[in-house]
């Protein structure tokens, strides 16, 4: 064994153990570390975002004279209008801006990469067992997602096949990520057993 003498390594290792302690029981040490972590992350985020306001808005605005950047800055300040009752309604402007960009981006993202690409990938020749499973599997699950009709008769049969296939999917995905999750634990153990205690 070869215990580390670096103070930062100690902090990291003890913090890791404190977080792990939660799984046994919520306790005062975890509670303290949780608050420290939330505060630290918030402070860090403030510094990162202050820098991005400086880089993305202030510098181009003041040095390159990019006046149009006043708009997002005003929007940003309007977010705080909610604290003043008489002009609180102004805080909806920046929100509707964010929502607008989001819905525009989302329409492109979901239709192009999720809908069209996935439909295209399902158009397979029905000449192998795998392809037949693929095409009819997708169809039966889509049947399950019909909301405006009760599942009766043939629809009920098709939709329940769809449900089974989804259950297999969930089981497979679950089993498939176990390795990735154990890897994370090994990474944390390495921090404790290796970096800190020097046993590995």
């Amino acid at each position, binding site marked *: 064994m070869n215990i580390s003498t670096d103070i930062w390594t100690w902090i990291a290792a003890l913090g890791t153990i404190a977080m792990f302690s939660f799984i046994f029981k*919520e306790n005062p040490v975890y509670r303290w570390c949780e608050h420290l972590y939330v505060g630290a992350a918030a402070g860090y985020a403030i510094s990162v975002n202050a820098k991005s306001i400086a880089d993305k808005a202030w510098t181009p605005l003041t040095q390159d004279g990019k006046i149009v950047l006043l708009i997002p800055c005003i929007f940003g300040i309007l977010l705080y209008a909610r604290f003043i009752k008489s002009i609180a309604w102004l805080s909806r402007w920046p929100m509707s801006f964010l929502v607008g960009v989001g819905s525009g981006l989302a329409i492109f993202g979901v239709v192009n990469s999720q809908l069209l690409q996935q439909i295209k990938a399902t158009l397979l020749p029905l000449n192998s067992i795998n392809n037949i499973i693929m095409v009819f599997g997708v169809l039966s699950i889509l049947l399950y997602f019909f909301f405006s009709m009760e599942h009766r008769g043939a629809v009920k049969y098709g939709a329940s096949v769809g449900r089974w296939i989804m259950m297999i999917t969930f089981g497979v995905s*679950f089993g498939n990520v176990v390795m990735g999750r154990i890897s994370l634990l090994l990474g944390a153990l390495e921090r404790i057993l290796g970096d800190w205690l020097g046993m590995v």
Partner: protein
Amino acid sequence: MTIMAGRVTFLFTVLIMGAIVLIGVNMSQAGKWTPKIRRLAGLDAVEEAVGRATEMGAPVHFSPGIGNISDDSAPQTFAGLEVLAYVTELTAKYNTEIIVTIRQPNVFPLAQEIVRQSYLAAGRPDMFQEDTVQFLSSEQFAYAAGVMGIMNRRRIAANLMMGAFWAESLLFAEAGAQVGAIQVAGTAAMAQLPFFVAACDYTLIGEELYAAGAYLSQDKVKLGSIGSQDIVKGITMVIILVGSLLATADITIIKDLLSK
């Protein structure tokens, strides 16, 4: 100005789907067509969960996910916020505390406004407190640590998670199970569905999350939209079936059209 290569089909798809949705919404608003939504066990469970929290005198926790409103995950976040409006009114009716935790700074003002308005609509503006809607952290796992701490210390009786989730999904679901909460989750994040299905009492899968707002509110606009979505789904199924049959005969016309 010209259409980008490979985006022609996208343009027409958006126009056709958009027309179907708009016509459905208009007909539903005009009372000419009222689609009925089949029973969704997961959503009936929402009321059950709030009811149980009331019996136990313990709070309800709600998370609208960790997605944003200004990127691809926006629709899931909106769907989650629709459910939040309904759940808040429900808790106002039952006089039960709700704790809403937020990860995205952008989502925070929206969620706060929705909760405030819902309390107002239910005639209980007094129930709104500064810590009803809590921003925790924009850092994914700091948010998770905060949520898990709150669930434990406040001994929540119901845990509702509706929106876009990433790796923290299982952290919440297991921490919720540890305190014995009834848990209902809903997400379209494929990678996290298995964990919700395994660890929660009820899970809304994919599109069910988008149907939730309509189902709970029975709002005509939303119902019309759900009906239209079913029509779009029907067309999709026909395209897949015909396309595969044609592909079997070595005709790739539909596939080529989709690549335009």
